């Protein structure tokens, strides 16, 4: 572990002058009360999802549908790392972001120059399925929190990058890893785990933000005797997966955390884990103080296609069937868009938003009626839609209260699903039981994507913007009547939020695995997005 302190960091630490010099920007400390009201600070970007409802929306309106054609690149920060999936946090002109594997950087958001860089050295070798990625930070007071690839939770001083404490989440030697941005709730740090492709038993944790002491843990795979354990055969629960690798949402009135869980393990061979395999591929509602389960909803019982439910749950207060409801909505990786009552977990609606072949229907209780011939096989089954990466995945959607539309990226593709012998758990080894590849067999034009604008209360698609190949980027919408997202070919683009008309684009030249955010720097609105291993900031000329 090495901390690189640049001159800028010392200046920052010694000076009380806000970096952003914006009269409206509020700097550190960022209290829980401010996090509760994050939408009222559009000059900053305070949490992974933009606010506790994960709306990924900004009230900023300097950049509008009328002037977005004047958007120009202002600066570039080079990560020099592959596969950047991080969403930054911005406070008063200082951007905090992560880069693979588990480094943290503070940037001057006006210039893109680094103020300090914290380089994390992994304490041990780790089995990871899918790249050395990290998706971001949480901030409380003057402390940043990051989960690391070797399954630690770190607290860093936001002024210097100095480590304040480090807690072990789990043993990386048993294939536990962590990639998700934590979530602050009151005085706790909520942190998810990853590693379901390595045979872990998943959980969601809460830690004391001051000390790093673990306050509660909810095991996402119940042990024998616990409720739900009857959905696992034999000892399969020990390696049952159900990781928690994407940041959830929070309703302060109900004091409930909403957090999605990943696939059961082994991914593609379900023979050794007969049953529904709770709480894999589910949305959990947990009491924020105790971690007790309030309700759960399982999207894909006994999944054998790696269709994690680790999409971002979006919280809406709206009407359903003419009645005011507290809703949580999610375009699931399994190809269906779901609406649930977030107070009770009641299933309200499911509607396919991409081609899907695996379910005849979703019944009145929300359980899929599965079609025959849709299982992975030894030779490979390529007659299953959606593909292994799903109709949607971990990338952030956006809800815009002005248009009352939900925006998210959808993936239209199929892949070849293989089933192999069920593996035995071994530290350091994969625990797939098959695979979901075979993309080379399909012509590129057989796969494509959409940015979908949906009426969230009905699942009706209002418009969709076609993309050449299935996207991995998140979505941002703003009060400027704009929707921002990016394509796998590296094009960052802006659409009219009401009509879907394309208004602007920029070729960033590499794939995009992250989402855009927006904030003020010296009083002027900037939009940033990681493209390839560059973070690019855009502003009006």
């Amino acid at each position, binding site marked *: 572990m090495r901390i690189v302190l640049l001159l800028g960091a010392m200046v920052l630490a010694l000076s009380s002058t806000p970096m952003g010099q914006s009269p409206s920007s509020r700097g550190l400390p960022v209290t829980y009360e401010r996090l509760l009201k994050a939408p009222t600070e559009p000059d900053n970007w305070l949490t992974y999802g933009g606010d506790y409802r994960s709306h990924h929306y900004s009230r900023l309106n300097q950049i509008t549908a009328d002037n977005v054609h004047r958007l120009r690149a202002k600066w570039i920060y080079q990560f020099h790392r592959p596969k950047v999936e991080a969403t930054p946090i911005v406070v008063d002109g200082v951007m905090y972001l992560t880069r693979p594997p588990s480094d943290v950087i503070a940037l001057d958001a006006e210039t893109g120059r680094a103020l300090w860089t914290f380089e994390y050295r992994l304490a041990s*070798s780790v*089995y990871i*399925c899918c790249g050395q990625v990290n998706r971001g930070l949480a901030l409380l007071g003057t402390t940043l929190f990051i989960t690391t690839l070797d399954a630690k939770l770190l607290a860093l001083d936001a002024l210097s990058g100095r480590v304040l404490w480090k807690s072990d989440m789990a043993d990386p030697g048993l294939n536990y890893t962590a990639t998700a941005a934590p979530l602050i709730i009151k005085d706790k740090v909520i942190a998810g785990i990853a590693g379901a492709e390595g045979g872990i038993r998943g959980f969601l944790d809460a830690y004391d933000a001051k000390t790093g002491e673990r306050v509660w843990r909810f095991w996402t795979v119940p042990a024998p005797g616990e409720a739900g354990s009857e959905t696992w055969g034999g000892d399969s629960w020990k390696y049952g997966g159900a990781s928690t690798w994407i940041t959830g949402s929070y309703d302060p009135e109900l004091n409930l955390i909403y957090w999605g869980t990943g*696939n059961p393990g082994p991914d593609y061979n379900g023979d050794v884990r007969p049953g529904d395999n709770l709480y894999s591929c589910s949305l959990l509602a947990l009491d924020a103080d105790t971690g007790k389960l309030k309700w759960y909803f399982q999207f894909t019982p006994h999944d054998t296609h*790696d269709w994690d439910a680790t999409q971002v749950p979006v919280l809406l207060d709206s009407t359903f069937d003419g009645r005011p409801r507290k809703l949580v909505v999610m375009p699931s990786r399994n190809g269906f868009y779901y609406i649930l009552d977030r107070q009770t977990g009641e299933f309200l609606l499911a509607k396919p938003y991409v081609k899907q072949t695996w379910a005849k229907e979703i019944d009145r209780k929300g359980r899929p009626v599965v079609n025959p011939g849709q299982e992975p096989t030894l030779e490979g089954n390529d007659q299953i839609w959606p593909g292994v*990466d799903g109709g949607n995945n971990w990338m952030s959607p956006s809800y815009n209260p002005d248009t009352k539309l939900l925006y998210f990226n959808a993936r239209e593709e199929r892949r070849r699903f293989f089933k192999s*012998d069920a593996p035995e758990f071994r*530290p*350091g080894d994969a625990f797939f039981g098959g695979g979901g590849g075979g993309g080379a067999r399909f012509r590129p034009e057989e796969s494509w994507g959409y940015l979908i604008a949906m009426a969230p209360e009905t699942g009706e698609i209002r418009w969709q913007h076609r993309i050449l190949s299935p996207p991995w980027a998140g979505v941002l919408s703003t009060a400027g009547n704009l929707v921002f997202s990016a394509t796998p070919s590296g094009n960052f*683009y802006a659409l009219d939020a009401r009509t879907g008309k394309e208004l602007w684009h920029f070729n960033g030249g590499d794939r995009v695995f992250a989402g855009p955010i927006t904030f003020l720097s010296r009083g002027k609105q900037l939009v940033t997005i990681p493209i390839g291993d560059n973070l690019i900031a855009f502003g009006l000329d």
Partner: protein
Amino acid sequence: MLRISLIAYCLMSCALVLQAQRPAGQSRSNLPDTNPYTSAADLEAGRKLYIGKCGHCHGQNGEGGRGATLNTGQFRHGNSDREIFLIIRNGLPNTEMPGTFNAPEVDVWRIVAYVQQLNRQGLKETATGDAAAGLLVYGKNGCAACHRINGKGGFLGPDLSDIGAKRAVRHLRESLLEPNADLPLDYRTVEVITITGKRSSGIHLNEDEYSLHLRDSQGSLLSFLKTELKEIKLPRESLMPDYKSLSKDELENLVGYLSSLRQKQ
């Protein structure tokens, strides 16, 4: 979550995975030379795995295709179980051969067992045609207008300088008679029509949401903004005509000539 990173896999797993699946202390460097999974059940499992994962390119019986022949008694990149294991596991750089990064080690060994069984057939098909006569067929039919051999010829089709080392005799013959049977993605064709009605066609080089690039029959690189185009056609057919009109001797001689092209000069 299933998006595999080669770098991540190699850095983190190459040592660990193999350590974990064999007695403690072993590493990739002491991967056994001899396949530990060769029972009849392993071979049958290997056959099914091969059909699912390998047969698409290497042929269902190892007869070759887009991928190398595997039933001739000789491999190009190594003959030992261990060498074949590593090729299947890691793929081959600068070729179309991918790795099988998430396959359990036992499955890779089972594929090795089946591939070795295919190889023991020793069914190498040798071209029977006269290569010198085939060169004349090549010239007479204008193949060089599109194909390049050792720096001479056109750009529209694949470079054939070492095609004999890459493709089985069967595949060469099939490509002449049925050019659409297996069209490499690098040589897909595209036709565009501009809003002024001008048509261009050639090899599809690059495309994103806003632009498209192709190489035409003259070897020229053409760039189009999609706002300039009213139609884009991606025909499934190859630009190469079929050569069913060749006599049997001409065909076999041409196959013989192509099969003799083994090394770029």
